[in-house]
């Protein structure tokens, strides 16, 4: 757990960068070093988007992910693009509407209804990134629930606290249930 390299991918507008920033914030709150960056096309929405968060117990030199220990993909396009590049120890989280591409080496692929939960259980598709943050924190144990809630609240628009806390809760539940089922 000394160094985690997280890559989040999706479509511009899904809030993938914000999710990546919140994970960095949570890592910082828990006293670790972090470096967060992103790449995206010139278009604001609809283009493919990749965000990265490095978390380490040591100061961080090179700030880009080279061998992700974790990959999340929210669109088929981004999964097809980044999935084949991961090694077998990379934990992959995908939306359950997606299909893992052939030849993806990752041994563990967690498929969870992130978008569906945001749309139907939380009630706003826009909260999918926070549902995802809940899943990721539960799967990776980046920080405790309280610190993660704090990190989320620091970065969301005013007036959306309740909605996003519910999203975080639902995301946590999804991953918890998966961990339960796949006793590890």
């Amino acid at each position, binding site marked *: 757990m000394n160094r985690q390299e997280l890559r989040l991918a999706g479509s511009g507008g899904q809030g993938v960068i914000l999710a990546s920033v919140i994970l960095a914030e949570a890592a910082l709150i828990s006293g670790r070093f972090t470096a967060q960056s992103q790449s995206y096309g010139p278009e604001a929405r609809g283009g493919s988007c990749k965000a990265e968060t490095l978390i380490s117990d040591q100061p961080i030199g*090179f700030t*880009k992910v080279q061998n992700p220990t974790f990959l999340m993909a929210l669109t088929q396009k981004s999964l097809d693009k980044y999935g084949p590049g991961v090694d077998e120890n990379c934990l992959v989280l995908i939306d359950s509407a997606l299909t893992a591409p052939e030849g993806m080496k990752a041994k563990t692929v967690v498929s969870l209804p992130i978008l569906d939960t945001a749309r139907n259980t939380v009630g706003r598709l826009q909260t999918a990134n926070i549902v995802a943050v809940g899943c990721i924190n539960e799967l990776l144990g980046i920080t405790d629930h309280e610190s993660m809630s704090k990190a989320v609240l620091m970065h969301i628009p005013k007036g959306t606290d309740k909605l996003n806390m519910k999203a975080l809760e639902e995301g946590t539940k999804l991953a918890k249930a998966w961990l339960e089922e796949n006793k590890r």
Partner: protein
Amino acid sequence: MGDVVLMQGNEACVEGALAAGMRLYAGYPITPSTEIAELSALRLPQEGGKFIQMEDEIASIACAIGASVAGVKSMTATSGPGFSLKQENLGYAVLAEIPLVVVDVQRMGPSTGMPTSPSQGDMMMARWGTHGDHPIIAICPSSVKETYDLTIRAFNLSEKYRTPVLLMMDELVGHLREGMELPDKEDITIVDRPTVKYPDPKRLPYHMKKGQLVPEMAPFGMGQRYNITGLIHDESGFPTNSIEEAEKMMNRLMHKISDNYEKIKDYVTENLEDADVVIFCYGGTARAAQTAMEMAREKGLKVGIFRPRTVWPFPEKELEELSRKVKRIVVAEHNYGQMLLEVQRVVKNNCIVGFVGKWNGGVITPQEILAKIEEA
């Protein structure tokens, strides 16, 4: 000791500028510098300052120059395409001796290039982009914290020497978020330009009293009337065609920087004591170099780092001395070889100079630098 906060490089630039006393930002947003304009628009009114979005990059630097003449610490930020446009007025500020900070968050060019891709392709434009012989100070930060600290330094140098200072950032640092500790206000050193206290009709605006580094500035609007021009001028501020006066003016302009090289130079070294190979790097590239050095050390290779933070004026004395002690210097930069030319000029045949460059919008990896180091 202040709080540790998660901050983006571009944000740190704004917070550093505010801490240094910036009270005007004029700009025209462009990726990857846009967050500097956005945050300035939010933060300046809170600090009693002004934000203006101008019609283009030329007007932006003109506005910042005007505000500085009125006595307000000013900044403008842009990327390559806008930096090209600012060159003419940059020269004006150099000659008229107007303090100013110009930020270039470099992206891949030429022209509009690849807007979201990292580059360090404007390093020679920083040196020679505006026409005519002139001195310049250019600074390159390689972390979020350094961006904060060096933005303050950029303002201080510009005030002290009455000259524009360039903060040459790059997309890697501008768009990087990491934790940084905000310093306490009382720990920050702030330099203000020498300023005249009252109007005097007999005062010559570019006259220097004995022991002064630069002429005292009279903020426009205080009642002191004087002429400012981009033409070569004498102490009165009015244009002159006198060869003697031109030489005097130009020498003073060049010497106020070169005579103070020891105070302006700023570089960081690591592991030079036993190094056979030294990585020369600056800005965002330093992060890959740092990891490459650690990887090389693990393999038992004696590798160090020489990293200028003030890139112009170039730390040639120090690099020349170093080149006599080591076997190789590997220059790593995100361009086709710009500071490489300067390193080669200084190092001559003292040691071997290798190069790791990137000019396709990609990022130089530690492995690429390590491979060059291992190429004995």
